[in-house]
């Protein structure tokens, strides 16, 4: 009987050991990271989350050329329009910028839990998102476009109604997906997880086009000659509210830095924004 007890006890101890061993790995290893967390409370670092895969807003590159910023926990660097804006905000706040590369679905929980301070990832301040997180004023405003395959019958479309009968999709959980309903008789497809998935679908012919914003369309068509961006004249394109086509910084509800960031953003002129975006499109690491 005593032996069985000893066995049970040792089993529990083994589990305990495993848990602490792993726990030590968690708390002991990130010496640098802990220091940074300490810093967050002292407000010395400004942690910004983005996908680093949505050129020209944000992308991953291997060196620090064109003012790219190191991505936390990796040897890669992040560049793009979002990074430039993040740099200006961090500078204005007097804090050191840290880029945290996180998948799209992880961004909102990350900011809610305080793992990052802000989302600067080409995210639009939609009414739905505003229920869970706060947004600053816009730092970019763009037009909605359609990206289609070169040589397809939709290449020369001028109005969104020209896409009647076309298989169209957009990114999941974005307003891009809801505006598709404005096209009459469109074959609305299942929403897709991210832009990479949609580009694959478009290239393989599963869809005829996807709804996007101008900067993404410019980059996509510049980087891959199989893609063509279709722009629409005023009144011919999608109708969307300002909140939808604009892009803003997402923050945890009640974050005191929001006002300060709004002031910093107000100091970045329209002209400067255009220049930053043009620079980002020119600098993005395309293969061309």
């Amino acid at each position, binding site marked *: 009987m005593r*032996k069985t007890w000893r066995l049970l006890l040792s089993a529990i101890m083994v589990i305990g050991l495993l848990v602490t061993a792993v726990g030590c790995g968690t708390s002991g290893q990130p010496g640098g990271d802990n220091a940074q967390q300490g810093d967050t409370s002292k407000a010395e670092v400004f942690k910004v989350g983005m996908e680093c895969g949505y050129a020209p807003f944000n992308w991953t590159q291997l060196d620090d050329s064109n003012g790219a910023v190191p991505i936390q926990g990796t040897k890669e660097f992040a560049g793009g329009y979002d990074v430039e804006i993040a740099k200006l905000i961090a500078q204005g706040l007097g804090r050191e910028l840290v880029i945290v590369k996180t998948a799209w679905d992880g961004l909102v929980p990350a900011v809610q839990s305080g793992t990052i301070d802000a989302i600067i990832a080409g995210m639009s301040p939609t009414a739905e998102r505003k229920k869970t997180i706060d947004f600053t004023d816009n730092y970019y405003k763009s037009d909605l476009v359609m990206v289609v395959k070169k040589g397809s019958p939709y290449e020369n479309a001028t109005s969104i109604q020209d896409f009647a009968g076309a298989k169209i999709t957009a990114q999941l959980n974005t307003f891009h997906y809801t505006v598709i309903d404005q096209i009459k008789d469109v074959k609305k497809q299942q929403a897709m997880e991210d832009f990479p998935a949609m580009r694959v679908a478009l290239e393989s012919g599963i869809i005829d086009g996807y709804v996007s914003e101008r900067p993404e369309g410019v980059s996509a068509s510049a980087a891959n000659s199989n893609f063509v961006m279709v722009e629409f004249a005023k009144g011919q394109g999608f109708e969307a509210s300002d909140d939808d086509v604009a892009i803003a910084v997402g923050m945890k509800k009640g974050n005191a830095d929001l006002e300060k960031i709004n002031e910093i953003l107000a100091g970045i002129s329209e002209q400067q924004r255009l220049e930053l975006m043009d620079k980002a499109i020119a600098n993005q690491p395309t293969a*061309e």
Partner: protein
Amino acid sequence: MSADASFFQWVAFIWEQNWPLFLRGAGNTILIALTGTIIGFLIGIVIGIIRTIPVDHNTSLLKRIILKIADVLLLCYIEVFRGTPMMVQAMVIFYGIAMIYGIHLNPIPAGIVIVSINTGAYMAEIVRGGILSIDKGQFEAAHAIGMTHAQTMSSIILPQAIRNILPATSNEFVINIKDTCVLSVISISELFFNSKSAAGANFRYFETFLITCIIYLIMTFTITRILRWFEKKLDGPSVYTIHGSQTVPEAEIRIVDGGKLHV
């Protein structure tokens, strides 16, 4: 790179441009999958042993109660972690702990913990199956000569059970290598996430993901070959001799070719 370059020229070009990105991603993937599977395997063995402790009419009431409670708790653990997607577990654990306790875990150790407890839940059932696959007579014989449950397990049952569950473990390994890609939601730059980044910049998806496929295949193939080799090693040589008696050295049985008797 000209726009009309061929598919494979693009593949070569993308590899040339992004190989550190791919290799670092693969490194993270293999690190998390490897440690996660090993820790999960150990968790599985411990749980498997606890859940097969025999209960009979001689067992005291207290021990019965404790075993019952342990059994219920372990069953809860197995059902919860086996029955929910790893991506959801990652989100809930990583961001949940940060939100409730204000503890910000480092993503990679957090990823290892998540893969470990997830694998542990599967392995617990695999190990239990392995233990149950050993003939009951061996338990009874061990107990008859006075061995405790721990002794029975460590010297008789587990060496056979572990051999039997190696193919299932190798499955878990391969699944873990592939499934770590969901950990990108907690900012882990593993292979798939890094590939998406590379493709997000060059907009050449098939070419980029072909490289990703090949790297995944190399990793999973290597792991399965290593485990297969280990299985063979555990099986021992197929040609050996059983010495019948120390006093009569000529009384021996030669086993040739995996068990066909040649006396």
